[in-house]
């Protein structure tokens, strides 16, 4: 099953981007503010034309540093950065930002407070004759749906409108790629859903290659063709969103992109034996090896049963679902999500059934095996 899925993804990607030069390519990029303590180390990734790649990770993981290295705001200490096949950053060379032809949307949008919307968008278009410049600005504003707002100042706009101006300004100069630094973090949570959809549609429509930095996995899942998960400056996994969620490469990724429980088990012939039952196993681990099985709450189904040894410890109502915290006989905790209409009170003994489409195993270490 896993195998098949991976193959499909592979096929999809190769079909879409066969033999084309990547717009962005990072080769073993390392950035260090202080020697010996790299902010990011050995990051490699590529983006093809029209790709939306997400850099996902907790704060301080180096995702913004990566973005700034691509923009040319940070010097790199090892590796190379290519934009459209042109070397723009290496330890010995750094093309200035203004010559990289990138568009950038900052977290706080950085709209020039002293300029009107129209002048903000036209900021990088000085080289064009006036009429072309005006045309380009009008096209951009129409594209982001802000026609009629030309004469406003940034502080007279809502957060969402400011973001769209920032986007129009970044795209106005027809950049080779767009860099977005946490573009939704300054917006009202109610608005982000709509804004995500709009942004995605716009990027698809203009076939813009984009690199988006975020700490929110929902945002990454919603937007990205591929996600690069970063932690402590290391690239943990680079894959399509589905694979990041279902087959995380490391326990960190598993935990960061959604709720996960790690149940210890022992490898037997072709299977893994755990408290929750037997899981298929694909020969990565030797016989008798101690492992943990990653289990997502949506894989665990509960059924009340008087004979059951596991009991419900807590229930959290989440609107579309109930999240149950369940204590196993060993005292270990697992979580289960069930439809919000079937309610079992706390204390109910329940039978657990795990229906996982893929088994994700990690070597057992003390941290993960803790109850």
């Amino acid at each position, binding site marked *: 099953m896993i195998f098949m899925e991976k193959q499909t993804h592979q096929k999809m990607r190769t079909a879409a981007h066969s033999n084309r030069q990547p717009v962005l390519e990072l080769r073993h990029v390392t950035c260090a503010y202080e020697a010996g303590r790299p902010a990011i180390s050995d990051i490699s990734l590529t983006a093809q034309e029209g790709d939306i790649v997400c850099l996902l990770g907790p704060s301080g993981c180096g995702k913004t540093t990566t973005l700034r290295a691509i923009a040319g705001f940070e010097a790199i200490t090892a590796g190379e950065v290519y934009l459209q096949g042109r070397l723009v950053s290496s330890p010995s060379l750094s093309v200035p930002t203004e010559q990289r032809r990138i*568009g950038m949307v900052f977290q706080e949008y950085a709209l020039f*407070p002293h300029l009107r919307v129209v002048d903000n968008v036209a900021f990088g278009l000085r080289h064009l004759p006036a009429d072309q410049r005006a045309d380009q600005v009008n096209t951009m504003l129409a594209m982001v749906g802000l026609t009629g707002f030309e004469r406003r100042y940034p502080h007279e706009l809502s957060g969402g409108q400011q973001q769209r101006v920032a986007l129009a300004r970044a795209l106005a100069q027809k950049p080779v790629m767009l860099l977005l630094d946490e573009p939704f973090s300054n917006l009202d949570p109610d608005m982000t859903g709509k804004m995500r959809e709009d942004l995605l549609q716009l990027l698809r429509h203009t076939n813009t290659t984009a690199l988006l930095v975020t700490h929110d996995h929902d945002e990454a899942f919603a937007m990205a063709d591929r996600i690069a998960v970063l932690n402590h400056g290391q690239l943990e996994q680079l894959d399509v969103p589905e694979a990041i969620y279902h087959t995380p490469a490391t326990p960190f990724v598993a935990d960061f992109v959604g709720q996960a429980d790690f149940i210890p088990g022992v490898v037997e012939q072709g299977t893994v034996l755990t408290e929750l039952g037997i899981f298929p196993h694909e020969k990565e681990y030797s016989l008798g090896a101690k492992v943990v099985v990653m289990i997502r709450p949506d894989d665990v189904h509960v059924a009340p049963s008087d004979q059951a040894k596991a009991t419900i410890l807590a229930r959290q109502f989440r609107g579309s679902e109930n999240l149950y915290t369940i204590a196993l006989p060993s005292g270990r905790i697992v979580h289960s999500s069930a439809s919000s209409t079937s309610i079992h009170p706390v204390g109910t003994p329940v039978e657990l059934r795990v229906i996982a489409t893929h088994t994700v195993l990690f070597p057992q270490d003390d941290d993960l095996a803790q109850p």
Partner: protein
Amino acid sequence: MTQAIRQWLPTSVSALGVLVAGLVVLPLLYILTLALSAQAVVWSRLWQTRIPELLSNTAWLAIGVSVGTLLIGVSLAWLIVRYDFRGRRIWEWALVLPLTMPTYVLAYIYTYLLGTGGPVEQLWRLIAGPQAQVFSPQTYAGATLVMTLDTFPFVYLLTRAALLNLNVSFEEVGRACGVTRLGILWRVTLPLLRPAIVAGLSLVILYVVSDFGAVSLLRYQTFTYAVYQQLTGRYDHAAAAILSLLLVVFALIFLLAERWFRQRSRFYQTMGRYRAPARKACGLLGTILITAYCVLILGAAFAVPAWLLLKWTATVISDGTIDARFFGFMVNSTFLSALAATIAIILGTPLAYLATRRHSRVSVLCLQAAYAGYVLPGPVGALAILVAFSQIAPFWYGTVIVLIVAYVVHFLPAGLQTMEPALQQVTPNLEEAARSLGSSTVQILRTVTLPLVRGGFIVAWVLIFLQCMKELPATLLLRPVGFDTLAVRVWLEASEEYFQLAAPAALLIVVMTVPALLLLVAKDWRAA
């Protein structure tokens, strides 16, 4: 929030506030009536003889000093914030020191330095030949130089703060748009700094047009000097009032400008998440050039004058020229200043309380009225008090009381500016909590509010105290006969060109001001 307080805040506080505000604004009203009720002949005479000259002199001085402080202040702020060189941290602090020099002290020192046969001329003759001359300090150039050296820290401080708060994202996004570094400087950075720079310049101009000490010693005819002359030479109150009114209007424009632009600059900077720009490291040559520039400016504005004051004071002391009278002046100054500061704090408390706790039209009006003292330059304030007292309480004329009132009216605004934020930082919730625990209003004030604002109020007291110590024109005009203060002595000796005799008092004023200035600057200082 305010609703709850409004219910229990006694109206006596409001009444007190209105009373204080009235007291402060009364002199201004006197000036206004006096000027407007003056005979048309006086107006036309002044208009034909004095006003054009005074206007152009004052305006040119303001323009000259603005250009000078703009160049010096902005360039220094830029170097300090954007470059890294040895000694940067020390320079960053040291560059505010010229503010400790009252203008009359700097003016008198430059009268000596640039005077005929003075050190600068001697030095210049070594270079340019025996007949060479330097410009006289008692000219437009001299007044501009002295005022520039004395006031550039205003521009430096405000520009520096704005540069430190400037979000580097603005510059980065500009570069991402393909604009060169020079283009960014002109199209992004300077426009964003503009409100802060203009606020600084407005402060400088306000200072220049209301200055009396320097222009009187340098014999440069401006409004303040002319008002003083009308009062002391011609005893012409009506003419003085007319000139004062013009001066007040002049000052008011720049006071409002400063407020407006400071507001704007705050609004410019609070946008978005802050990130500091990287500082450019300087090589040896860069360090030498920047240091030389700082040495030149600070040397001219502070170090050389301070050194001269020290030298002269030492001479005077070893000569034994300094006598018991000097300590008398010291006592006079300290006594007057301490009394005025204490009264100002007591009167300012209800006003500050009203402003922070009760937002009503009355309280805003009271506060604005209290700030009127700001637009009453020394001689004008003195004239106003003089006239007011001769109308209301002529028997007090020529006593210390008049002087104290003048000080309080003039410096209450400066105190309020420190007291207001101090009170603002105490959340009304604390007072409401105390109220819910059964304390009365007076108890709350004594046990909760005042202990919490003590620090801010002490700073305000120190500030007013020092301003009073330095105050010259009102003291000159209103002091009781034979009652001299340190500032008055400096001015009297200096106008007779007894440079050495003026030094001890001047030095004392400067030395006392240094710690207070550093304290004040440190309040909203963020190390660059």
